């Protein structure tokens, strides 16, 4: 059911890795422009796999993915990026051997030079750790520092759609709070966000919609606050 108003439409997507090619067992979700949805669910449910499929890293076996009505299915990641989708993967999300500054510059690879310079400076101000470590190789960052860098790289472009895979993992409470504030701010500027989070309560509290993914299927969808309040969802997926 193509929705004229939707920014992102994922319809009946089936896909996986090599022999295990049915990790996603027919996923249908949609996101309207400038909305934010949080995806929650147990480990191994297929959350990251879904984001990878949208970002073009994984070619789905069946189903379709559309951005503003245009098919993304089968396009390489760089083309999808060029259409305004920024993706922060869960693992291996920085260039370890490049310096922090170069990482940011790579984040803005598709942007003009002047914009890159300007945003690099802006982001360094926003995240002072990055400014402090600008000349260091990213591999020397601590776990939390890496996470911030990965996030900042995605902010080097002004995407229509931001895909975040567990952005707060490994962040101190203070840093996580700051991060969620930042995400909310980016969202407020009109960016649509699809975010996978294990820090589920926090995520559902800033998102408008919630999606519960279990074993490759969408188990529940609905308003974020409502889901967060649902006792069964709380018990099964949100740690009580």
């Amino acid at each position, binding site marked *: 059911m193509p929705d004229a108003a939707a920014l992102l439409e994922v319809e009946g997507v089936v896909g996986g890795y090599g022999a295990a090619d049915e990790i996603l067992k027919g996923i249908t979700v949609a996101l309207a422009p400038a909305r934010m949805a949080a995806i929650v669910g147990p480990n191994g449910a297929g959350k990251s796999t879904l984001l990878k499929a949208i*970002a073009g*890293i994984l070619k789905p076996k069946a189903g379709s993915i559309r951005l503003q009505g245009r098919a993304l299915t089968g396009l*390489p*990641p*760089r083309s999808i*990026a*060029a259409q305004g989708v920024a*993706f922060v*993967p869960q693992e*291996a*999300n*920085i*260039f*370890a*051997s*490049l310096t922090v500054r*170069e990482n940011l*510059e*790579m*984040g803005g*690879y*598709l942007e003009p*030079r002047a914009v890159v310079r300007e945003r690099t400076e802006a982001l360094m101000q926003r995240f002072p750790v990055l400014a402090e470590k600008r000349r260091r*190789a990213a591999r020397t960052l601590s776990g939390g520092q890496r996470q911030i860098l990965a996030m900042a*790289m995605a902010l080097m472009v002004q995407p229509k759609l931001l895909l975040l895979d567990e952005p707060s993992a490994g962040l101190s409470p203070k840093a996580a709070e700051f991060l969620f504030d930042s995400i909310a701010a980016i969202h407020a500027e009109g960016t649509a966000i699809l975010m996978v989070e294990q820090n589920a309560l926090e995520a559902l509290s800033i998102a408008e919609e919630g999606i519960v993914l279990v074993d490759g299927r969408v188990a529940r969808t609905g308003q974020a606050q409502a889901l967060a309040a649902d006792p069964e969802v709380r018990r099964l997926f949100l740690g009580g």
Partner: protein
Amino acid sequence: MIQDWRDIAQILLNGLMTGSMLMLPAIGFTTIFAVLRYPNFAVAAYATVGAFAGWVANTQWGLPAGLALVAAFLVAGAVGLLAEEAALKPLRPSGPLTVAIASVALTLLIENILRFFFGNELRGYDLPILRDWRFDGIRIGPQQVQNTLYACAAAGALFAVLAFTRLGRAMRAVADNPQLADIKGVDPDRIARVAVFIGAGLAGFGGMLLGLDTSIDPLTGFRVILSVFAAAVVGGLGSIPGAALGALVVGIGEEMAGVLLEPAYRTVTAFLAILLVLSIRPQGLLGRAA
């Protein structure tokens, strides 16, 4: 054997001259490694291809040395690109070792294709051979000085590109994490092609210089691949200035043979030098720690 400082200076200079022949192929080798992260032994074949391309340009079409070198670069680069796309690229998902091994087979293949068309005869260029310069009893070869200059220029230019340009950054990003680079909008395949073209081209360029110094046959590149590989490793794989430096270490190591052991043990002294360097710096002179 060593009587005065002149002998020492001469040995060092000889090492430099010997090393100068390895520099360009080593830089080519390391350039490909820097982006694709596997040792491409086919640079041996690309060097031979360059030597033959230069030979054809020089003796068959009558082009001067400079233009023949350009031909060597272009033809070797093109062959490298073609071979990469057809033979090696499909193997990349199987891991660097598989590609490395396939590149050895590729070397055999290209060597024999050349043999098929050119036979085993030794060939020489239509170029004069210059006498050495002498300074106070020390001997320097103009040809080798020229080689060194070419290699340093190539190394400098490449290093600058890698370190300071958008393309260079993208190359290093692809080397580091091709998938993430793709996500950020880089076409890793295109970057790989650029690297392979430059790397193979430089190997071909170096191969022709090698041919100028020796003579060419289908084994021209193969004879030096061990030393080339050693140079790149000693310098630190993936480091462009490292490859140039490594070539010098290997060259000097080989020329020291006469002093340390016997000339018949050239390779042994070279490997002792390599072992020494690697036991102090396991990642090579200018390489980054793992």
